[in-house]
Every structure is written in C-alpha cells, then in structure tokens.
C-alpha cells in the first residue's frame, strides 16, 4: 500500500513537471509571436521595438537593415542608438522617419533636433528627425530645441564585412533623376550594398567634361547626347532607360506662345523659335519641324542657354514658340498652352550611360546599380504620392509649379531598342556629329538589365 502511494505521488509529480514544461513551451512560442521584434526576409512587419519591446509608432520608428538581410525596428532614436552601441558591426543602414512628411529615409541624410517635445514617452525620447534643415530649425525654434549631431555618428561606417561597391553618378537637376534621388534617400542603394555618390551637372557639355576627367562613372542623359557621348572618348554604353514619354506626359515639345494665335506647327514658317543649347534639343527641334513639314531654313532658331530661358522668352512673347523639356512641358500643359508638336507617341527616352572602364572594372557594382534603380522606379510608379516630396525638393521643378506637378512614370527595367536609336543615329550622321555608322551593340549594353519580374520593392520602400 505504501509503495502504491509512493508510486502514485511520483506519477503526479512527473505529470506536474511535464505540465509546467508544456506551459513554458507554449508560453515561449506565444510570447515570441506577441513580442515580434524583427523580420527576416519575406516576413511580416515587426510589431515591437527590438530593443525594449515598446509598441511601434510608425511616425517615430527607426529601422535597421542588417548585413545578413534581416531587419530590426525600434520605437525611437533613443532605443536604436543604444542597440547600435553593441551592434556596430552588423548595420548596413538606419532609416528614420521625417516628422514633417512621414517618409522614412537614410539616417545619414537627416537633421536631428533635441527639444522639449517627447516623441516616445516610454523612453523619454526627445530626439527628432527631419529630412530638411529648414524643418529641423523650425522645430528647434518652436520647441526650445537645438540641432544636434547625427545620433548614429557623423561618419556612419558600414561594417567591413558588408563590402560596399562604389559608383559616382552624374545627374541633372531634372525629374528624370528621381529614381536615383529616391534610391539615395530611402536608401535603396545601401540595401543593395552600394555606395553611390551623386555629382550634379547642368547640360550636356558638363556631363561630357565630367565623364572625360573621370569624375563620374555614369550619367543620366537624353538619348541623342548619350549616343554621341558613348562614341567619344572615354567610351561609354547606354545600360538602361530612365524616363519615357507617354500619352499624358511628353518630355520634349514645341509650345506656341500664348500671346500668338498659332494653332499648327506649319504656321511656324517665318516665325522665331527658342531652342535650348545642346545636341538633344537640336535633334528634337529639327525632328518636329521636319515632321510638321516646316523647312528649317524658314524658321528663325534662337539658341538659348537653357530651357528656363526658352520658357521665359515664350511667356514674354519674344518668340513664337519654344522647344521645352520636362518639367516645363508639364507646366505648359497645366496652363493649357498649345503644343504644336511633342513626343507623347514617340519612344525616345532619357537614358543611363556608364563608362566603359566602370563596366570593365566594376561590373557587379553596375549590375547592382541598375537593379536598385529598377527597385526605385518601381516604388515611384507604385506609390507616386508617397514620394512626390522628393520630386518637389530635388526634381528641378520651378518654385510655383511644384505643388501640382505630376510624378512621372519611370522605366523599371528597359533599354533602348535598335529601332529606337536608329533615327537618332541617322540624324547624328547626317549632321556630322558622327563620323561613321555605329553598331547598336557598341553603344547599348543589355547585360545589366534585370528580368522585370525579379525587381521587387526594396525593404525600405515596402
């Protein structure tokens, strides 16, 4: 009997211990789900801060993208910086949220203010992030704050193991470069382990100079200029399209002066037309006039410094028409001005040109660069409203037209075809810009274009 009782007691004890182990196992699994703090590739969004488990508020969220492709989310800059102290060798980049626009962006581009306002009371975080210095200073003035150094370090050093490739890209201050700007702002390039430096330039001549002295590895250019640049030393190749016109958004167009009753391009015979400097503008001007049946010698072509000048002359009525380019074509459309000719049904795009030496020395970097630009273009096409603030700030749009300026639709993974470049090449030959016939494969390199199905949204844009 005594033995029976002992055995019974032992069984109860064992059952009890097994039960508590089961409870712990269940609790552990459920607890993990409840306190979801980070994501691996393809996983859901994090719900809580990776440092202390505080619920995330998207307005103050900080995200870290790690070298192994996983991410960590933090409730505040306070938590992120504390976590960073022990994880300096893992982080590729941090994104912070601009308190004005709600956009998350690369922390290295941010302006930080410490003020009386507490963002996340749980951790008493008083550090605020802004994408623009003006907004940061405004907040500082309003809430007794001061600009502080970047809390993640002034010189954010990516881990050695990450092995970033470097590229320097020349970009005009035009909407065409928006995917490039977004990829830096978000930061899509960093997510692809790419360190991209942007060198702004104005006009084809400056692009040629920068390519020639090796200051840049790549440049965004109009197609005619790009073909010309690719055939002169240092040799380069077109590796992707940037911006293509569409039935709603022309890139190049001849617009009649609002002060004159010109309805048709044929009416430009004997009239003056302002054309900005550069081989591309000349190509489009001649193409439109020729297509409209207007002999070139019957038009007074007034070569002007840039598109802004052509616009001014048009508005002032000093010329009968002007050849405009985006963003001025959109402004003209918004003002219901009369387009005498434009490229809405044409297929010529602006393109990305990369030097031959960059293709040979860092093909991997070029490949990642093209892929990242595709991701950026996709993000812009899918969420144009979300990113229009970058267009407004860095799209080269004149002050008064920024608010209603439409976000263009970008080419995700495409390259000019032989049929598309042929008329341009013929014109360049005819005008003597090219000495001899060129082979398509020499100027266009298709090896870097990814399969469009492989291009998805980057984590930072998801």
């Amino acid at each position: 009997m005594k033995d029976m009782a002992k055995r019974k007691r032992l069984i109860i004890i064992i059952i009890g211990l097994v039960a508590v182990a089961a409870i712990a196992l269940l609790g552990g699994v459920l607890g993990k789900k409840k306190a979801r703090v980070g994501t691996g590739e393809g996983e859901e969004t994090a719900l809580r801060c990776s440092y202390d488990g505080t619920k995330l508020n998207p307005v103050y969220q900080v995200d870290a993208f790690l070298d192994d492709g996983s991410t960590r989310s933090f409730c505040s800059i306070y938590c992120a910086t504390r976590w960073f102290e022990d994880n300096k060798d893992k982080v590729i980049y941090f994104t912070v949220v601009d308190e004005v626009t709600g956009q998350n962006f690369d922390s290295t581009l941010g302006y930080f203010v410490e003020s009386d306002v507490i963002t996340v009371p749980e951790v008493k975080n008083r550090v605020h992030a802004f994408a623009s210095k003006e907004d940061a200073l405004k907040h500082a003035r309003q809430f007794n704050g001061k600009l502080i150094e970047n809390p993640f370090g002034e010189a954010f050093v990516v881990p050695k193991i990450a092995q970033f490739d470097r590229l320097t890209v020349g970009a005009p201050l035009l909407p065409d470069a928006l995917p490039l700007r977004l990829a830096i702002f978000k930061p899509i390039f960093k997510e692809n382990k790419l360190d991209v430096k942007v060198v702004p330039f104005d006009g084809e001549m400056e692009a040629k100079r920068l390519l020639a002295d090796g200051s840049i590895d790549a440049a965004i250019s109009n197609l005619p200029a790009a073909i010309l640049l690719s055939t002169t030393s240092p040799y380069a190749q077109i590796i992707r399209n940037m911006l293509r016109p569409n039935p709603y958004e022309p890139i190049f167009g001849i617009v009649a002066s609002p002060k004159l009753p010109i309805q048709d391009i044929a009416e430009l015979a004997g009239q003056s037309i302002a054309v900005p400097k550069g081989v591309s503008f000349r190509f489009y001007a001649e193409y439109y006039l020729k297509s409209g049946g207007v002999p070139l010698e019957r038009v007074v072509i007034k070569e002007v410094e840039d598109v802004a000048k052509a616009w001014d002359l048009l508005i002032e009525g000093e010329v009968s028409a002007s050849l405009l380019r985006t963003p001025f074509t959109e402004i003209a459309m918004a003002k219901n001005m009369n387009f005498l000719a434009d490229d809405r049904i044409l297929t010529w795009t602006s393109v990305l040109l990369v030097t031959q030496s960059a293709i040979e020395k860092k093909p991997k970097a070029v490949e990642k660069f093209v892929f990242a630009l595709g991701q950026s273009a996709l993000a812009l096409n899918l969420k144009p409203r979300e990113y229009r603030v970058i267009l407004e700030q860095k799209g080269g749009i004149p002050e008064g037209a920024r608010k209603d300026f439409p976000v263009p639709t970008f080419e995700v993974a495409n390259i000019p075809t032989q049929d598309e470049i042929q008329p341009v090449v013929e014109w360049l030959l005819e005008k003597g810009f090219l000495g001899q016939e060129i082979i398509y494969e020499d100027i266009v390199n298709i090896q870097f274009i990814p399969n469009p199905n492989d291009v998805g949204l980057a984590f930072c844009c998801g």
Partner: protein
Amino acid sequence: MILNVFSITETFIGLISLILMGWAGLLSLTLALRWKRASTVEERSEVEKRSHLVLMVAVVVLGIRLLNWPLFYATLQSFVSDIDGAMCIFGVTQVKRVVTRISEIIKPIAFFLVGAWLLIHILDQKTQTSPLMGRKLLFLSATAAVVVAESLLDVVLMLKIAPGTLISCCTTVTDILDRPTRLVPKATLGPAYASILGYGYYVSNILLVLILGLSMWRLRPKSYPRWQRTVLGFISLFALFNGALFVLTQIEVHAPKIMGLPFHHCLYCLWQYVPDTILMHLFFVLGTSAVGWAFLLDLVGRTGETTDLLDKYLWMLYGFSIFCFVASMVMNTVHLVAA
C-alpha cells in the same frame, strides 16, 4: 483613481483587511498577553474561547491576503494603458514611486509572514492542547501589523494613481549601463559575469534541491538532533541567497533571452510578453518561502506535543519546495531552449 474591476477589488480587499486585521491584531495581542498571564486551565480555556472568532477572521483575511500579492500586480498591469509612457508595470510604479516601492518591499514580507502564521495555526489545530496558542496569537499580532501597513499602502496607492500621468518606463532605468544589477556582479565576478550568473543559477538551484532532498531523507520522526535547527537555518539562508541569485540572473541573463530582447532587462516586461513566466516566478517564490516557513515552523512550533507532526510538516514543506524549484527550473530551461 483609475476605476476598473481590479482597482475596485484591490481597494475593497485593502479596506476590509485594514479594518479586520487592525481589530484582529489588537485583540490577538491582548489575548496573547492574557494567555501568558493565565496560570490555570480555566483562564487558558477562557482565552481560547475568546480567540475563536479572531482566529477565524484571521484565517479568512490572511488567506485572501496570500492571493493579494498577484492581484496587486494584476491591478498595476491593468493601469498600463491609462498611464502615458507606461509600457509595463514598471511605468505604473513610477507614478507614485515611494509608496509603490515600500508596497513592493512589504508585500513579500507580508506573504511570508501570512504563510508562516497559517502553517503555525494549522499545526496548532492538529494538537490536543493548543500548545502554540500564545506564540500563535503573538505572531498573529505581528503579522497583522504588517498586513495593516500593506493594506493601507494598497488603498492609498489605488486612490493616488491618476490616469493620464506622464512618466517614462523601464528602458530608461533597467537598460542603462550603470544599472546596479549589472555593476555589482560585474565588479565582483568580472566581465564574464553573465555566463557565471547563468551557470551559477543552475549550480545553486540544483545544490539547494540536493540539500533539501538530503534533509528530507535525514528528517526522521522522534529523532531531533541538536544540529537540525542550525541546518534548517543554514538552508533558509542558502535559499535566501539562491533567491537573490535568481533575481539577478533573471534580470541580467535570462529575461532578455526569454523575451528575445537581448538588451532589455525588465522583469515586468517579461511577465507581459511571456505571461507563463509569472507561474515560473511563483513556483520559485513558493519554493523559497517553503524553506523559510519550515525553519520558522521549527523555531516557533516545536513543542513536545508537536514534534512528530512538525517533522512530517517539515518533510512535506521540503518536498513541496523541491517540486517548486524543479518546476521553476524546468520552465526556465524550456524557455531558454525555445528562445
């Protein structure tokens, strides 16, 4: 005051305990003094008669007070959403910092005393002549004083915590580099303190379980070696040390791992994110308390009449303690493996 079912229950229990234990404490002190002075059987019988009601009230109220400790934390947890900046109980404790701190210190003491008194009372009830009546009444008056203070603090706290108070929570205190729970072990154990604590936890717990098992084996009725009380006292001290080590290890090593937040050292957050760890901690508290109760029972309850019963009680308490420690360790280990 934040009104919800928890706070109303807590306030109600606090008020009832305050009144009844105030009365019971004073009466039991009077009766204890009368018991001491009584020289005849009649006088003692009279005291016994008068003590029936007070003992009955004490059993009910103190039984409820035993449950009040977890209820207290459940109430604080229910306030989290009403306090701006609170992400766990820690945030709520920051609203009335001093009162809450005193309350949190007094609660385990009250829990221990209440448990001990109930055990002494049960032991005394099993005897024919109530040899422990005098000590029991005296112990009750001391326990009542602590419970009154605890109840008073509960009521004050419930009334004082106002919704919408802005505070900062645990991260700013428990995760800073110069937190005492990090500095002390680091200074004494060196930079590898975390792994020493991790191993130390298991070594200490297993050792305690072995000592308790050995003591159970050596505890024989009708043989009361002189060294037994010293050994019981030593085991109690060891259990206390083990408790301190457990708390330290939980804060510094295990809680961050179990939560999956390697830099967060808040036990309140642990309860929140992994609620079954409350059970794990409860097992540990009960195991440690049982060791202390055994010692106190031996200290207060050993008389000629209780010897046999007492050894049986000690044996049961140590058995219960072993089960609790092992259960706590099993839960902790499962969590660490699953983390």
